[in-house]
């Protein structure tokens, strides 16, 4: 167990393994994305109330789901970095933050685009949208804090503390926003998400969620490799790998 953790903490080992992983994961991700998108956009039936506009959920929902999961990935990496002082965890956390922020932004933008035909307005202070907005703020806070520190080891530590505090807070934020919303808009707007979704629409959605998880993993791995390349630009092992490959 310990040797595995220590191996994972070694940049050369990680660099080699992640290279192999990306080589396999990238085509799989692209395939999943293409299949899911085609299935969702062409094969799945139109919604009886929203027509074709609902199809944006095949982007919106997966990005929202993975954005939230991404915060937990980041916070977990932060906890590992705080407890075991493994540098790779710092790198993971740093790599995950911008990817998660972009996914959150995608979820927000697609939500707004979806809102125009559905509710007739670009922005509604709906519970879920508001929660996503706050999640975006949490991500941006981590990114901004990282940039503000000059000493990047200290920056990673600080971001780990912040993201752990955020992790504990996220369920409370979601619940409080939920209550706030139900108090102020007693069931005036409901969308189809509340009712059971038909299997013919659900399966492509699940496929897209899996695809987005893979996308997240690939993006984080590539980001980590870029970060490692920068950190170890002088190191001999990196030169060996790059010239050998």
């Amino acid at each position: 167990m310990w040797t595995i953790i220590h191996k994972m903490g070694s940049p050369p080992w990680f660099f080699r393994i992640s290279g192999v992983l990306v080589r396999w994961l990238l085509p799989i991700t692209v395939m999943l994305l293409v299949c899911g998108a085609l299935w969702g956009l062409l094969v799945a039936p139109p919604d009886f109330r929203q027509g074709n506009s609902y199809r944006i959920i095949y982007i919106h929902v997966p990005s929202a789901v993975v954005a939230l999961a991404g915060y937990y990935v980041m916070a977990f990496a932060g906890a590992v970095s705080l407890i075991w002082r493994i540098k790779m965890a710092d790198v993971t956390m740093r790599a995950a933050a911008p990817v998660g922020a972009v996914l959150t932004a995608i979820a927000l933008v697609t939500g707004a685009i979806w809102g125009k035909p559905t509710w007739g307005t670009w922005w509604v202070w709906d519970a879920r949208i508001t929660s996503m907005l706050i999640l975006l703020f949490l991500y941006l806070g981590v990114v901004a804090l990282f940039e503000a520190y000059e000493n990047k080891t200290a920056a990673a530590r600080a971001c780990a503390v912040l993201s752990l505090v955020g992790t504990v807070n996220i369920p409370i934020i979601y619940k409080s926003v939920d209550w706030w919303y139900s108090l102020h808009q007693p069931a005036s707007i409901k969308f189809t998400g509340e009712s059971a979704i038909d299997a013919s629409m659900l399966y492509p959605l699940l496929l897209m969620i899996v695809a987005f998880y893979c996308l997240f993993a690939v993006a984080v791995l590539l980001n980590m490799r870029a970060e490692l390349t920068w950190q170890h630009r002088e190191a001999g092992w990196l030169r060996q790998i790059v010239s050998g490959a």
Partner: protein
Amino acid sequence: MQLLAANQVAIERGERRLLAGVDLSVSSGDIWQLVGANGVGKTSLLRAVGGLARLGVAGEITRHGTMLYLGHHAALKHNLSALDNLRFHPACDVICSDEDIISALAAVALAGYEDRPIGALSAGQQRRVALARLVLSSASLWLLDEPFTALDVDGCAWLEERIKQHVAAEGAVIFTSHQPSRFGELQQNLDLAAYVV
């Protein structure tokens, strides 16, 4: 008695490696001076030894006994009196009575200044209020960063005397200074130039 053991300590700041392979063993009765040019890492090593700096510090540091650290900043609140500053000192681990503090202030030639706000004292006087902790503390290992700066001749003599008393009473001192071998035979030097990477 050994108070501190540093084994193969390496220090890096950000991406820059400052020192590597530093070995230091401090026992009671020792006076160690960290010697080296500006920027070589004297303060960084002192902070690492005290446990203030943790990131970028590799190697093994074992500490036995309590420590007192005196840095560039005196940790004094300007709107508090000298008495209150020492009474509520953030690092003090013993209960000292007002008489103790007043006599400590008298020892550093500040008798009668107990109730003045620190902000109303001169830089040298503030420094001496900070030095009064050397009388009040029960710590066995002192880490003093440039303790002789901003002190007049009498003050330097007093501090030297105080350090000698401390090591005579089974204590130990690590300090940094630009002035070489203040304590002559009594002190040992750790020249950091030998460990620069």
